Each structure stands twice: as C-alpha cells, then as structure tokens.
C-alpha cells in the first residue's frame, strides 16, 4: 500500500504544479490575448457583458482610426527616432567609456567609476527638475535631442561594457600594443570588434528602455506632434480622442508590438542577461 501511496502523491503534486504554473501563465498573458482579440471588435462588442471572445463582426476600424489620426504615425516616428538616438549614443559612448575604465590607466579612474555607479542610487525625481531647467536653458525643450541628452550614455551601459572588457583576456590587447597600436587604435581595431556580444545586449536593453520611456518624454516634450508613443497614447486617452476605447487598445498594441516581438525572438538571451545582472547586484 505504501508503494501506491508514494507514487500517487508524486503524480498529484506534479499535476498541481502544472495547473498552478499554467494558471499563472494565463494570468500574465490574458491581458495581451484579450486586447488582441478586442482590437478587432467594435467597442459595442468589446464592452459587452459577459465578455465575448470572437470578434463578430471582425473589424479593422480601430486600427484604421488610430492610423488615420495625424499624430499617431508621428508618434511612432518620434519614438523610433528617440530609441535610435539612445541606442546609438549608448553603444558608441558607453563602449568607449567602458573600455577606458576597464583597460586604460589614468589618475582617479576607480574613484570616478565609483562616483558614476553611485548615481544609480539617486532617484530620477531628484534630478528631473534641474535637468529640465538645464535643457530649458539650452533651448532644447520640446525637442527629441534635448530629451536624449539625459539617457544618452546611461551608467548601467557603461557598467556592462566595463564588465565585459574586464572579462576579456589581457593578451590580445598586449599583442596589439606590441604591434604598435596606441590606446585609441587598440580600441577601434581590437576592443570594439571583440565587444559585439555586449554591444548587442546594451543595444537591446537601451532600446527597450527608450521605447517604453514615459516620465522623460512627458516632461521634456510639450507639443503633441513631438510626443513619443507612451505619452501620445496617454494623451489621446485623457483627451478622449475617440469616444470608444477600442482604438486606444489597438494603438497600445501597435506601440507594444516592437518590444514584445523583440522579446519573444531574443528571450533566451534577454532573460539570461537580466538574471546575470541580478546576480551581480
């Protein structure tokens, strides 16, 4: 009897495990699934109770409404532009700085790096207003470039690149030096090409951060034509641009699509990277 008891308990426990895990997977996915379905419904159907699950009629009206709005394509463009600048800035400048902090010697190097690291502790709100004032005085408010200045070279990117460069063997760089490369040449010919994996990581994280950013764009962008997608959609919602909610859902899905697709494609690397960062934290 003990035999059967033991085996049965194990199977029951396994079943419970699968049920719970799948249940929660549904919980986490349901909003996306439901939104996706509803984006093809009329508002009348989407807001019906009890909720319906098959769009009938199946309509593309919501997407069309969103795209017809002059501002929406502009928002997409602005967001892409902003993300592009941030990615480029981080990839370019953070790599250079990461390399310098990892491989070059200069007075105050470690103190300076620690000082930069300490900045991660300071909440965004403390520096928000003064940053706004600085950008204002530069005349770059309501300008994507002005907005970009803040996160152009994020400390976390510098940290990541430095970690990566530190992990590379010293010999390759020594060989370059012996071959007559000065420090800057070594960076461009040896460091940069070797850093591709880390560059990819920085690019992806910064893209995600920039595409989803809200507070910065909200504060630094003033006219609706210059908004990024999150700000624009929130604006559209609050101004009740459409009498129905479904266009907002459609717009939200369009806005979320790039990050979702990027994540699903790269999920193995992203998850691994985030876990490793947590380990170091």
């Amino acid at each position, binding site marked *: 009897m*003990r*035999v059967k008891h*033991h*085996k049965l308990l194990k199977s029951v426990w396994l079943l419970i495990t699968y049920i719970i895990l799948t249940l929660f997977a549904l919980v986490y996915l349901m909003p996306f699934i439901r939104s996706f379905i509803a984006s093809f419904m009329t508002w009348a159907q989407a807001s019906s109770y009890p909720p319906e699950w098959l769009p009938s009629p199946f309509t593309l009206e919501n997407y069309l409404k969103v795209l017809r709005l002059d501002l929406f394509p502009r928002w997409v463009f602005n967001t892409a532009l902003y993300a592009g600048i941030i990615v480029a800035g981080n990839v370019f400048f953070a790599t250079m700085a990461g390399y310098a902090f990892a491989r070059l010697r200069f007075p105050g190097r470690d103190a300076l790096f620690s000082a930069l690291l300490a900045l991660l502790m300071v909440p965004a709100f403390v520096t928000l207003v003064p940053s706004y004032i600085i950008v204002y005085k530069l005349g770059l408010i309501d300008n994507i470039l002005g907005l970009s200045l803040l996160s152009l070279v994020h400390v976390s990117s510098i940290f990541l690149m430095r970690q990566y460069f530190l992990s590379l063997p010293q010999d390759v760089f020594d060989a370059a030096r012996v071959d007559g490369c000065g420090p800057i040449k070594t960076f461009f010919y040896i460091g940069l090409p070797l850093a591709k994996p880390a560059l990819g990581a920085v690019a992806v994280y910064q893209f995600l951060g920039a595409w989803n950013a809200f507070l910065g764009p909200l504060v630094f962008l003033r006219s609706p034509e210059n908004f990024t997608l999150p700000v624009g959609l929130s604006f559209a919602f609050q101004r009740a641009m459409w009498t129905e909610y479904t266009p907002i859902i459609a717009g939200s899905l369009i806005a979320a699509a790039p990050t979702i697709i990027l994540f699903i494609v790269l999920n193995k690397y992203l998850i691994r990277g985030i876990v490793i960062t947590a380990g170091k934290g």
Partner: protein
Amino acid sequence: MARVYLENVVKRFGRVVAVDHVTLEVRDKEFMVLLGPSGCGKSTTLRLIAGLETPDEGRIWIGNTVVNEVDPTKRNIAMVFQSYALYPHMTVYGNIEFPLKMAHVPKEERRRKVIQVARFLGIEDLLNRYPKQLSGGQQQRVALARAIVREPEVFLLDEPLSNLDAKLRVKMRFELRRLLHDELKTTTIYVTHDQVEAMTMADRIAVMNQGRIMQVALPIDVFDKPANTFVAGFIGVPPTNFLEGVITVKNERLVFSTGPLDLTIPEEYHDRLEGYVGREVIMGIRPQDITVSKEAIENSYPAKIVGYEPLGTETYIHFTINDNKDYVAVASKDMKIKLGETIYWKPNSAKLYFFDKRTQKSILY
C-alpha cells in the same frame, strides 16, 4: 541487523544500463568497498541504496525490509558526498545539528550529541565557523560528523578522499576505517576508483565494471585470485601482463603456445587445464612475478628491451617477445640495462593466471 542486500538490481538512464543485474550482499557491520573505473556504476549503486535513485528492476533490502519504495528521508542511512554537500548558510554546529532537528530531537539533547560528535572528531573548536572558512580536511570531518550524529544503520561514502591532497588522504584512510569499522562498528559501503584505498580499507571488495559486478572477495583474494581478466588487469600496479595463446601438448607435456613462445605449464595447473587442450586461453602474469636476468637461466625466455622506467625503489622494464606487444617486469634498481638489449625473463610458476579467452573468466578459480 543492518545488512544491505541488492537483489538483481537494474537501473537504466535512457538507453544506458548503469547498473546491470547486480546482486550483492553487504553483511552487518562489514566495510564493503565498491571499486571500479569511472562510469562503472558504483556511484549509481550507492545512490540506489540511499534512495536518491529508484531501481527499474530488482529489490533492495536494508535489514529485513525491502526499501525500494521507502523515501530517502526515512531510510536511516547516512551518506558522505564527494563534495561533502555541507549547508553553506549554516555553521558547523548547524550542519551537524540538522539531521537531529529533522528527527525532532529536543534542543538540549541535540546540543549534547553535536558536541559529543564534534569532540569525537576533533572539530569542537570549529562549531561556530561556516563551511567556506574551513579547509578540505575540516569540511570532510564536518560531513562525517553530520553522518555519524544520526547513528544510522548504514554509512555510505562516495569517494570521500578524492578532494584531499595525497598526504591527508593517506592519513584519512586509516582514520575512516578505524572510526567507522572499529569504533562505531557500523555497516559501511565505500565507493572509490583508487585501489590502494580499497585494498587497505575493505573487509571485502566488490569490483565493478560497466554496471556489473566482476568479483566480490577479500582484498587479498581479489589480488591473488582474480575471477576474470578485468579484475586481474585493474588491480595492481603496474597492470598484469596478458598473453594470448593456445593450450597444446608437446612432448607429452602441456604447453602454452603463444607466437614464438612455448611456455611449459607447471604441474600444479595440469588437472585444471587439461580440458582446455586445443582451446584459446589468456595467460596473466604480474610484473612483480617476473624475474629478469642478463643471462639465460633455467626456464627463462629471451626478450628484447624496448623501454625502462627507473623509479628509484625499483625499475620497470618494458620488453617484447616479437609478437608486437609490450610487457612489463619489475626489476631491482641496481640492474643495468640498455635499450635493445636482450634479456631473459622467467615467470614465477606459482603465480600464473589462466583465463578462458571467450568468457574472459578465470579457469583456475
């Protein structure tokens, strides 16, 4: 009574049969060593006894109970892992105390027992330290203490000495045997790939290869009376020399013919080898049982030296007898040899092994 009995146990991992119809009895209070090369199934066998794996076929007994379905938490056995598996977040005291805590032993008694065992193993000064602050030898003692404190019926040890440096290993061999067998008098099953450990520590050795038991015997018998070519070749350094050949009759005497060599078979083996006339056999002779001399002596055979290894205490001489194989003999360190030289070797006739070529099993024992 804490005997352990494996009855026809099989364990598969996918298509690999890790434990292949193993039947083994470990007697109460016996110190049994499972010896074999990596991958031979000895660790898996140990884990089956512990309950960390379940057998696909066969039964495992501890005492008088079949324990196949008994949870490892309830088997009353203790195991010392190769990596020691100490709880890194607990102090030494916490580590040793843990099994008692799980058994709901009251706090005062736990304290008493932990201190007693710690004193017994000489680690009472370390009770407040954490595993990562200890040396390898100290960690091992803590692992031992944790096993001992439970007063289990059986001790299982999985290559406990392999992470220690050579000197410590020699010391610990004696200590472990004394502790577990002489003082605690508890059934112990010890897994290792090191034959010196096996020979010096075991009451009996079970030699394993590819999931099967090759021989179970006293250490001296495993050495002197190997049951098959594997055991003969695995035990002993340098390894046993094997010659392949046929038993024939020449001049009314039994002769072992191999290539250019005809070896007269001594009287004492005649009755057992008579039935093998005309059949292929393998003869085994240990390097230590070969006498080497520069001149031809009675019953010796010529050979050419192809290499030698001076060890300081003795010299290993590698030679061929023109059948494309190297053989090794152990000679005195004072012998002066040169490559290519011809020497004469003579096997000790009392120490010959004969194996059936087809079954690889010993004909004599």
